């Protein structure tokens, strides 16, 4: 008898019920050929109803510039809305579809943010059973100012290692693919990632993951390492 938690690099269609909410924070170190970055992200979702969630994501960014002075500041702030559009529940399993809209807003006079606002409409699907979890997403990223738009996609498989009990004590393994296709440039960027998640209480988990590029034509990214926690408050 098993159960497992939300994927690490991919989104989940599971909302946490009316008035439910929590906090997720993780540190993400990305190694690049020229300039590496560390991003500490804080995300706070809140459920207005059992099928409607709003949330805010604020990253704090440090760009390491070698011998030069590091750039430090707030990255783009993101607001999001998730709406459960389809749900099919069975004993110990569920299939759900969520429509998610994200809007990131750049701070003016900020040298660590994206420098432009980005809109992202995403369709998130998940088939989650007590024995495994299968998650996927596909989305369209609108980038203004004449920059090319993107198609985003992801696929994740989660597998729990320990027998289930509640309150839980669980270790989950994740294998994930995430990628984006940039229109106009016809560039493909695909990451493969692996992660492990420890659920130590019904409201707390700690997770770590490593993401490396599988197909990487023009990006200089070598790898991304993640360490984070999730805590349910409400």
């Amino acid at each position, binding site marked *: *008898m098993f*159960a*497992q*938690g*939300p994927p690490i690099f991919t989104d989940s269609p*599971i*909302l*946490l*019920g*009316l008035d*439910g909410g929590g906090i997720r924070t993780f540190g993400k170190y990305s190694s690049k050929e020229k300039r590496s970055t560390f991003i500490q992200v804080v995300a706070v979702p809140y459920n207005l109803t*059992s*099928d409607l969630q709003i949330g805010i994501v604020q990253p704090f960014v440090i760009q390491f510039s070698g011998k030069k002075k590091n750039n430090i500041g707030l990255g783009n702030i993101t607001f999001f809305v998730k709406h*459960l559009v389809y*749900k099919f*529940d*069975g*004993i*110990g*399993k*569920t299939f759900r579809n969520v429509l998610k809209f994200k809007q990131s807003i750049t701070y003016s006079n900020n040298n660590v943010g994206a420098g432009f606002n980005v809109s992202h409409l995403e369709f998130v699907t998940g088939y*989650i*059973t*007590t024995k495994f*979890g299968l998650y996927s997403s596909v989305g369209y990223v609108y980038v203004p100012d004449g920059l090319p738009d993107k198609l985003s996609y992801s696929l994740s498989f989660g597998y729990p290692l320990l027998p*289930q009990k*509640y*309150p*839980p004590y*669980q270790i989950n393994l994740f294998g994930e693919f995430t990628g984006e296709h940039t229109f106009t440039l016809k560039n493909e960027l695909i990451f493969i990632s692996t992660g492990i998640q420890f*659920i130590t209480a*019904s*409201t707390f*988990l700690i997770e770590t993951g490593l993401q490396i590029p599988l197909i990487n034509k023009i990006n200089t990214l070598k790898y991304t390492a993640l360490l984070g926690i999730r805590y*349910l408050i*409400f």
Partner: protein
Amino acid sequence: MKKITYIGFILLFIFFSNNNAQTDIGKNQKIKIEVEGLSCPFCAYGLEKKLKKLDNIKNMEIDFKKGIVFLTIQDSKKISDEQLKQAVINSGFTPKKIIRD
């Protein structure tokens, strides 16, 4: 004589405590709720939280495999099936049968 009086008081105390406890147990009712969609620990927490907001819930256990929530309620008359179903729906799951002992 004092010792006998003390022992008498202790025995009386034990007798009445036990008697009250039995009365309480008698009032407790057990309810089984069949819930569909329970597939992760955080999901179960959402359900637990919603059900515990209802009055008179004394104890709760969740069996993922069978999709059953076991509730012990102090006075079952005060929680209707409709309230229980609504709590399950509010936590994002699908309620099925409610069985009262």
